[in-house]
């Protein structure tokens, strides 16, 4: 039987806070789940329950305390993202696993167009080609052309979130991690996010989103995991 795209087994994360008397906090109870290719997997639950922690452990911004995260990589075969060496993780981030954080964090001197194209540049795509694709995304996201050369730092929260999402989707990774993708967006743009997730799935991307926006994301999820 073929392996699933992602198999999270007994994932547990605790933070040891040396600066606060060595106290340990564990936002996340042990979780296990499986994500198949093309699937949209929705994780929901109240704030502070550890939704983002799961995504960050998969992306390796956090080091998991226990458990395994098996990813069926095109490049490396079946690989445990908890144990994989750093250079493998960096290559996976460029080629196979995308992450859209809750807040856009960018350099103030880089234009919206270059910000959205950056993942393509990293993949080695020629600048002109990347920018042609970038422009398509910016207009699909409803960004007015006069903003394309401006820095997203000056944008509204909703505009920043659109850039943030575009940047994550543009690279067409095999696994896309979305942290609260519909937060700070208006109703119309929320529907656009749903369409973007569906289109990405159709292109072969599996999406894991964490959210408390069940009303919008629930209907388009293939599987749901409630953290209680």
């Amino acid at each position, binding site marked *: 039987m073929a392996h699933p795209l992602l198999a999270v087994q007994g994932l547990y994360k605790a933070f040891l806070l040396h*600066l606060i008397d060595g106290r340990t906090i564990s936002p996340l109870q042990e979780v296990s789940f499986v994500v198949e290719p093309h699937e949209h997997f929705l994780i929901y639950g109240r704030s502070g329950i550890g939704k983002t922690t799961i995504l*960050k452990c998969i992306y390796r911004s956090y*080091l998991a305390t226990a458990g395994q995260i098996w990813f069926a990589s095109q*490049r490396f075969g079946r690989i445990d993202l908890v144990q*994989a060496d750093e250079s493998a993780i*960096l*290559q996976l981030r460029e080629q196979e696993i995308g992450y859209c954080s809750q807040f856009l964090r960018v350099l103030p001197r880089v234009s919206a167009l270059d910000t959205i194209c950056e993942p393509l540049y990293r993949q080695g795509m020629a600048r002109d080609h990347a920018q042609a694709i970038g422009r398509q995304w910016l207009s699909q996201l409803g960004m007015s052309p006069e903003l394309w050369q401006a820095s997203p730092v000056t944008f509204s929260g909703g505009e920043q979130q659109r850039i943030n999402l575009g940047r994550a989707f543009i690279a067409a990774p095999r696994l896309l991690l979305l942290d609260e993708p519909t937060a700070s967006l208006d109703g119309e743009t929320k529907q656009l996010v749903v369409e973007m997730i569906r289109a990405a799935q159709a292109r072969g991307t599996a999406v894991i989103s964490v959210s408390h926006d069940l009303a919008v994301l629930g209907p388009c999820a293939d599987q749901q995991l409630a953290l209680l």
Partner: protein
Amino acid sequence: MERPTDDWLLRVEGLSKRYGPGCPSCSRLTGPEAGTSQCPRCGTVLACVAAGLSLRPGEVLGIVGESGSGKSTLLQMLNLAVKPDSGAIWYAEPGGGTPIDLLRLNAYSARRFRNDRLGIVHQRPELGLNMHFSVGGNVAEKLLLAEWRHVGKIRARTSELMAQTELPVERIDDAPGTFSGGMLQRVQIAKALASRPALLLLDEVTSGLDLSVQARVLDLIRRIQWEEQITMLLVSHDLGVIRQLARRTIVMKSGHIVESGLTDQIMEDPQHPYTQLLVSSAL
């Protein structure tokens, strides 16, 4: 299917440097837990203890730590300017080639290697530049050591480097003393790049510059890294600088490497008490 690649440009093993005679208590009384690299018994400074790291071709590795943590000593050993007491620095030319231990090169080969394959940019320009030579003369110095002999070609290459580092080419014959702080860092970068080195060492290159000048120098470094895909080792005490440029980071304290990891992991999920303190102290 590929194995995760372990090809590297530079591999450092057990690199140590101490200043002083040493005594049996040195290693017990120094280090991150003791909070000092100086032995209270004999005064010996254990500036760098058993440092290990590897650098992949084209990557930027950050080294962060407070003053006296040993990061500049480590950099100077890699620059072959300070001789380690023990350890090895393996270098493998990109595209294959037998790794060589740089510490076993004879004096002539070490000097050639340092000139041709390494470039360094210091925090203080006077350490990297001869302030009595013109800008053109400074860059030419590195080219002459690399056995460039044709004056026209040297001048052309220097002009090219000045343009690349956004320096006014018409000032090629001016002395460094007439340049501003940010421009002097550009001159150092131009000089460092002259021989198309495989590894660029950057030691606190933006410390002490105005914020806007700092940003321009960092933008320049980022652009050059992007265009040339040059491998860089970036020493800084400023986490913001590290975050902008380095995807992997090493944290040093009291002569020891206390933590290393992906830069975002170091910032978001620091493990060592010192790293947690460092991250929590960021402005």
